[in-house]
């Protein structure tokens, strides 16, 4: 009788043991979530959006997989741990890539800022040499207004740059440069026409 009771208890203990042997790898889950948050802080959504979305999707799939295991009688978190390792590595890479891309855009913006300042300066010099006269005065007035708008746009771009919004700054300074170069060409053409 004693043996029977012991065997029954052993069977119940075995079922209980098997059903609770898997534990959620919480430390890894937390580490991966922290890495994703760090990537977000590094503006990965702006500078490497596709890669960042892929990492977020992976984490969603992992969270679902964890719930799947939690729903089962016999839990198995081994494959999830492997997936977490991969996602953690990917999240760290995305953060590093975002920082690198941001630096690249920052450098590009700085280079364009220097370039446009040169063009603005040259335009100022050319403006003095440009033909005047009745019609020329109105044309120069329009050019002066456009130069003022370009300079205001460069100031705005500098503001975005100072705030760390390099992508916005780059877009603004690119547009300003296009306009400044167009005026530069126009001025050079007008001066060349007079010389001929």
């Amino acid at each position, binding site marked *: 009788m004693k*043996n*029977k009771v012991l*065997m*029954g208890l052993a*069977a119940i203990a*075995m*079922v209980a043991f*098997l*059903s609770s042997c898997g534990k959620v790898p919480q430390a890894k889950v937390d580490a991966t979530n922290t890495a994703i948050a760090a990537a977000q802080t590094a503006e990965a959504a702006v500078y490497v959006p*596709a890669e960042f*979305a892929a990492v977020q*999707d992976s984490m*969603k*799939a992992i*969270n*679902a997989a964890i*719930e*799947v295991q*939690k*729903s*089962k*009688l*016999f839990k198995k978190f081994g494959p999830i741990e492997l997936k977490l390792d991969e996602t953690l590595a990917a999240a760290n890479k995305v953060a590093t890539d975002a920082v690198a891309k941001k630096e690249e855009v920052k450098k590009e913006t700085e280079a364009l800022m220097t370039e446009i300042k040169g063009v603005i300066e040259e335009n100022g010099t050319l403006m003095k040499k440009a033909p005047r006269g009745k*019609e*020329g005065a*109105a*044309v120069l*007035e*329009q050019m002066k*207004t*456009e130069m*003022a*708008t*370009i300079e205001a*746009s460069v100031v705005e771009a500098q503001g975005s740059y100072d705030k760390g919004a390099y992508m916005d700054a780059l*877009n*603004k300074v*690119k*547009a*300003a440069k*296009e*306009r400044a170069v167009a005026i530069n060409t126009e001025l050079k053409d007008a001066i060349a026409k007079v010389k001929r």
Partner: protein
Amino acid sequence: MRKRWRDLIIVIAVAVSVPLIIMILIRITPSPPEAEMENAILQLSKAGTKRADTYSKKLYTEAKIFYDSAMVNWQKENKRFIFFRDYQKVLKFAELSSKKSTQAADNSVVSTINLKKTNSEKIDSLDIIVAAINKYFNDYPLSAETRSRISRGKMLLEEARITYKKGEYLKSNRKLTDAEYLLTTSYDNALANLKSYFDSYPLWKKWVNATIKESEKW
């Protein structure tokens, strides 16, 4: 001898009943909504790839809310005793999320195509207006305010062109709307100004001729 047989029967009974009990337990455990949730994640991801977060924001946000609700309910159910779990709500939210994600993705594709076309046409038409302004009003004595508006309009058009080339159609569209307002109103005002100038021209001509005639008499 009899005791041996009895023990053997007990061992066999336990060996058979334990797996049997386990099998029964597995069978009566409610099955998790694994496939439905996987599909919800897949559809949400597809919608994200099609930029539904930008071009179909409302539907995409709804899809995300339904997905989050499904997850919250799933976690809640998993905290209950295993045999008392009910995943019906999770299933409902997962299906709703998938449906909304699909709609968001489709809507985003259509919106992107339409916005791309509209922006391209708007850029072309504003280029024509800018060309006309340059041709007719570059050397025309416009007011400082009008010149400034034209200049800002041209800058916004350039910014819109750059964002358009980057595939940021919504951003481009916002800039184009502002550029269109500045350029078309300036152009219309300048045109009206020019028209009124020429409307008065015959009267001025008459005055000039009258003055010449009067002076000839002297």
